[in-house]
């Protein structure tokens, strides 16, 4: 079984070369870690003749730098390396998210840039990074000009959580805040690669000063559908006193279910049920935190 199509693999060594390649090639396929691209059914022998731009040789894309409020992570930093480096810096939410990404053998290959720019499917990392107020640097090549702009990660996705990045744009750097919240929870149920239709990934964080919820953020990720941020529900939860009574928990769960149905009608009943149970678990487990306070 041999490939009949010859694909050009361009391997820029610096930003200048990269811009040149983006400018001169039409619809080139940007290759970061390649785990998603190579895991598609029928990837080889391929029918796609688009040239490939491989980012692995650009040194600045593999750098990690710590600033006062953020850790700047190049788009080609692999998940394992970020997990190792960020062990004592990042919040538990992000560390749990990174550690939950399959096994370390795969984590060695997948990159942060690739994880947030996967077309068609959403996994655990983008949701958590959005909750952590991550900004991204976007390189945009237009004609002979190029610009690098900084914008919140959330803005590269549309309302449904699908990637909304122009073809001549490329994420070069992530600026991840490392401030922790009083309560953080990450839970992934199911197998995102093997069984995406039954998988739910939940990231949640809030502050609990004096037992009152503030800065509540919730992201439910359904791999095939997208991300659900439950903004209205979070607004309702703001200012609530914990611990919650069972009646309150059920009331909020009902709102969550209604929100999921309205936003993603194609989410399976199993995914919905799992989302609600994880959410309820989170609300109930906020109790011990108050006792500590």
């Amino acid at each position, binding site marked *: 079984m041999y*490939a009949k199509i010859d*694909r050009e693999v361009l391997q820029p060594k610096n930003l200048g070369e990269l811009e040149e390649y983006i400018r001169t090639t039409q619809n080139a396929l940007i290759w970061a870690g390649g785990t998603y691209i190579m895991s598609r059914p029928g990837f080889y022998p391929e029918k796609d003749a688009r040239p490939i731009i491989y980012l692995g040789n650009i040194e600045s894309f593999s750098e990690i730098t710590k600033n006062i409020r953020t850790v700047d992570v190049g788009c080609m930093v692999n998940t394992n390396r970020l997990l190792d480096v960020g062990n004592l810096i990042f919040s538990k939410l992000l560390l749990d998210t990174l550690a939950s990404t*399959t096994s370390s053998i795969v984590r060695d290959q997948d990159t942060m840039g690739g994880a947030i720019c996967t077309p068609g499917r959403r996994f655990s990392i983008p949701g958590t990074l959005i909750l952590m107020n991550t900004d991204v640097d976007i390189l945009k090549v237009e004609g002979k000009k190029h610009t690098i702009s900084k914008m919140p990660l959330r803005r590269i996705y549309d309302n449904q959580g699908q990637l909304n990045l122009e073809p001549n744009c490329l994420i070069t750097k992530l600026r991840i805040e490392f401030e922790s919240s009083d309560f953080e929870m990450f839970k992934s149920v199911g197998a995102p690669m093997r069984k995406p239709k039954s998988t739910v990934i939940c990231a949640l964080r809030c502050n609990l000063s004096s037992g009152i919820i503030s800065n509540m953020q919730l992201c439910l990720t359904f791999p095939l559908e997208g991300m659900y941020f439950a903004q209205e529900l979070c607004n309702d939860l703001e200012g609530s006193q914990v611990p919650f009574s069972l009646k309150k928990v059920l009331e909020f769960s009902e709102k969550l279910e209604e929100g999921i149905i309205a936003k993603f009608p194609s989410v399976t009943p199993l995914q919905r049920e799992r989302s609600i149970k994880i959410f309820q678990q989170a609300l109930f487990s906020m109790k011990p935190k108050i006792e500590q306070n």
Partner: protein
Amino acid sequence: MIKLAMTLNKTPIDLVVAETKPLSEILYEDFGINLSRVNCNGRCCGGCLVLVESIPVLGCMYPAFKLQGKTITTFDAFMLTSHYRNIKRTYDSLGLTPCPDCYEPKTLIIESILLRNQIKRGNNIDSLDPNSRNFMEKKVLTNQFDDIDEQTIADEFSLSACKCMDPSDLLLIVKKAREDRIKRHVR
């Protein structure tokens, strides 16, 4: 097409292949090396694990254009190393051996856990370089192991879908193999 110069099981090889041909397909089609599974359509089944520069990787997710100048070791060649003998000794001493279907991937996953644990990375906050503000990363292979976290080990074995062994047995094998590696100074 790309002209590759690489080393396969200590033999230097020149080869012309399609740029994006997966390593598992190269080994199977061009060298007749039968991995336990060649292509699982991205299910991360672990059947095509091989060592690239002594690090276990999934062959189905490793494209040809990244293989330039690399050293590839298949399971057959790994069986000749002291690291394999260490794991094999552990299987024998505990009387616990994976089934023939998952023997290769499970053994390489154990090797991956031990190797990862053996490589001490000086890349935490203490090693922050004050001048460049970049994290320094040093990889040194030592005989000092970190404490192996049981949850991490369980997560690693999620790559092998075969349920022939109990997770507690796999934990036991990893811990025993680590003890043996320390005792015998296996490097």
